[in-house]
Each structure stands twice: as structure tokens, then as C-alpha cells.
């Protein structure tokens, strides 16, 4: 079973990497959003392999069911014309971006190699079920939980205010 689950992990990981690349590379925003969706779903699957079913469901509900749809909605709303990526000035950013990314990758690899393999997993977490997460959330982390609620409310109001169409002189 060990090998099977590792194979499974590799397959899902590959999907998630490929879709992530797709997000970055694709020219059409809608395609990017779709790749993002694939990435999120693969992430949810990874969560399940990590025994976090509740989070997996939450991931799908919030990310796939909410965020990506919202993005699609916005893309359709403002028109999905391709953006001229090679806009005259600042042609150097992509190269620098890729360079920075490579540096980041190098440093992380270095850190991982330096630290050596982490200790083998000790316990089998049965904490992924909703009850356990809920208990933790509403007891120990009640304050952050409430804060998150407030944050969402504020974001909601903020988004509303921001996206409200500019006041026009109605009635003429």
C-alpha cells in the first residue's frame, strides 16, 4: 500500500504542479482561472490524503465554489481580452522574476538538504473530522475565529463600497 499511496501522491502532485504552471503560463484569463480550479481540487485531494476531510470540503466549497466562480464572473464582466504582456517599458521583469524564483528554489532546496529528512511520521491523526476541528476552533481559537468573521464582514462591506458603480447624475 505504501507504494500505491506514493504513486497516487506523485500523480496528484504532478497535476497540481502542471495546473499551477498553467495558471502562470496561459494567455487567456479564463484558462488561468480554470487551471487554478484544477489546482485547488487537486489540493483538496491532497488534504484528504492528509486526513483533513473537513478542510478538503472547505477548500472545495470556498475556493472552487466561491472564489474561482467569483473570478470567472469578474473576468466575464470586464471582458477577457488578452493583456499585452510585452508592454514597452519594463521588459526586464519576467527575467528578473524567473531569476528570483530560481534563487528561491535554490535556497529552499539548500535548506531542505541541510535539514535532512524530517523524522518519520509518528501519529495517525484522527483530527481531520469536522467535529474535532470544530471543537478546536470554537474553544481554543474562538477569538481568531470571531476575528475571521469580522474580517469577512469588513471585506464584504469594503468590496461592496469599492465595486459600487460611480454615482452618476441620474434623472435628466
Amino acid at each position, binding site marked *: 500500500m505504501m507504494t500505491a499511496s506514493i504513486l497516487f501522491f506523485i500523480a496528484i502532485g504532478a497535476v497540481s504542479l502542471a495546473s499551477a504552471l498553467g495558471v502562470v503560463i496561459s494567455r487567456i484569463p479564463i484558462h488561468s482561472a480554470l487551471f487554478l480550479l484544477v489546482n485547488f481540487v487537486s489540493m483538496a485531494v491532497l488534504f484528504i490524503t492528509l486526513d483533513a476531510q473537513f478542510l478538503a470540503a472547505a477548500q*472545495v466549497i470556498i475556493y472552487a465554489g466561491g472564489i474561482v466562480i467569483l473570478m470567472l464572473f469578474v473576468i*466575464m464582466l470586464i471582458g477577457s481580452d488578452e493583456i499585452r504582456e510585452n508592454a514597452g517599458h519594463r521588459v526586464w521583469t519576467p527575467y528578473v522574476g524567473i531569476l528570483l524564483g530560481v534563487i528561491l528554489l535554490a535556497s529552499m532546496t539548500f535548506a531542505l538538504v541541510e535539514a535532512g529528512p524530517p523524522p518519520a511520521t509518528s501519529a495517525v491523526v484522527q483530527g481531520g473530522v469536522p467535529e474535532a476541528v470544530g471543537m478546536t476552533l470554537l474553544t481554543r481559537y474562538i477569538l481568531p475565529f470571531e476575528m475571521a468573521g469580522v474580517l469577512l464582514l469588513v471585506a464584504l462591506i469594503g468590496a461592496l463600497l469599492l465595486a459600487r458603480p460611480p454615482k452618476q447624475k441620474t434623472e435628466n
Partner: protein
Amino acid sequence: MDWLNLVVFPVLRSVVLIVVLLTGFAYLTWYERKLLARFHARYGPNRAGTFGLLQPVADAVKAVFKEEVIPRHVDRWVYLLAPMLALVPALVIWAVIPVAKGVPAIADVNIGFLWILAIAGVESYGVILAGWSSNNNYSLLGALRSSAQMISYELPLGMFLVSILLLAGGFSLVSLVETPRAWWEWVWLWAMFPLFFICILAETNRSPFDLPETENELVAGFQTEYGGIKFALFFMAEYINMITTSTIMATLFFGGYRLPFGLLSDVVWLGPFVLAAKVILLLFLFIWVRASIGRPRYDQLMHFAWKFLLPVSIGYMIVTALLVVFFK
């Protein structure tokens, strides 16, 4: 043995389920056409086979042998992907629904409710992407409507589901059906059924809330550019969604595969039939509503969701929570 349990049985079950669902879809179209015809004081299909029973076969064969056109102006990949995306969620939602005592369709997972919510969330992709990829203004409007509508109605739907969850005390649908309930719980549950049904209508894009495809305004809405088998897939998705949501409603509100008062609760094979009977009755409701009620305007639909359903559903949830805390 592990393999058998892990792979073979689920696969077998899914195959059976898909076959049943496809047949169900085919005969649902027949059922709807016949029933709608009777509501309209006419006969409905009766040329293909006795009582038109072969009508779905004719439709299916015709659709398969129709020329497949991919218009030049569409976004090819997304255009082809969309019908499948529409159909898949309608099928996978079945994984958690119990069809008989101790027999979930695929698996009795402990996040059954969340699964339903999650899949309901991705259901709208097919419609949205179809509308966008068609590169047609009508389709785009249909897609916009669809996305807004789905997000709006998911909220009250989620609230209602959470309320039921509170009553049930667990995420599993199997235990929901099996747990006996007090009479006031039933009454309290049923009181909310009409509103839940409205949400379901909106979620499945069924008339009177079929705004994404409103024939009279948007020609065919998101599916304007689809023909042949691809259109049939959308059709399939809509109708399988109807079956699926009816099953969910039957499970949530009407005791799923169980007969009332615990009659014959030991006869396991009766379960699917009881469930099917309940589903057919609920489908009748779908069609009856379609025959009787006009369609609201898009903005009115949104107002209804945000200004009426959402507050009511939140209120309902709070009251349910109080009831559960004090009486259970």
C-alpha cells in the same frame, strides 16, 4: 480483499448507479413530456413505442448521430469541456446518498453534508464555461446570470443544510436517515421545505428559475451554441440534477429509503423502491411547478435570495439551534 473493497465494489456500484441514473434521466424526459402534456390537456409523445415509451431512445440515438459542429468563433477546449463539467457533479453527488438500509450509493463518508455543499458549489462551472466559451452575447448573459444565481442561492441552501445538520447531529446522511426523530422535529423540518425547494429550483436551473437559459429572452442562454450530443449532455446534466436533488430532498425531508412509521424497516431490498417512489413524487412537484408558475426577472430572483431567503434561512438556523439546545 482490500482491493476488492477498495476498487472493485465501488467501481461496480458506480457503474450500476450510472446506468440507473442514465435510464432515470431518459425516462424523466419522457415523464416530463407526458406529464406536462397532460397538464396542458394534450397527450404528449405517443408515436415512438407504446405511450411513446421509446421516445427517449429516439432522442438519444438522434443526438448521437447528429453532426458535431464546433463553431469557429468558440474557445475550443473550454467549449468541449463545459458539457462534461456540467454533467460530472450531477453524478458524483450520488456518492454519499444512502439508497437502502446500510447501503450508501458509494460510501458512507463522515462529511456527507459537506460533500453535497461542495459539489453544489462546482455545479455551476459547466454552465458558466459554456456561456463564456461560446463567444456569444446571449450565452455570456446566461453564464453571468447562472453564476450570480448559483452563488446567491447556495447561501440560503447552505444555511438550511446546516439547520438540518443541527437537527441531525452529524454529517453523515446514513445516520440522518436512520436516526428517529420527534414529531416536532418533522414539523419544523417540513415548515422549511417550500423554501428549500425554491433554492433547489434555483440551483438546478429549473423553471421557473431557468434564467440562464430563458428561451424567451436569451434564445437558449448558455447552450445557444451547443448542438448534437454536447447539447444532450447539458440536457442530461439538468435532468440528472433534478433526480439528484429530488433524492437529496427525499433523504433530508422525507426519510429517504424508509417507509413512514418504521414499516418494513428490515426489508433491505425495499429501500431503493421506496426512495424511487419518493423521488418520482418530488419530480412531479418539479413539473407541476413548471406548468403553473411564471418566471421572475433576474434581478427579482436575486432580491428574493438576498432580501428574503437569506435572512429567513439565518433566522431559521438560529431558531433551530435554540430548539436543539433546549429540547434535545
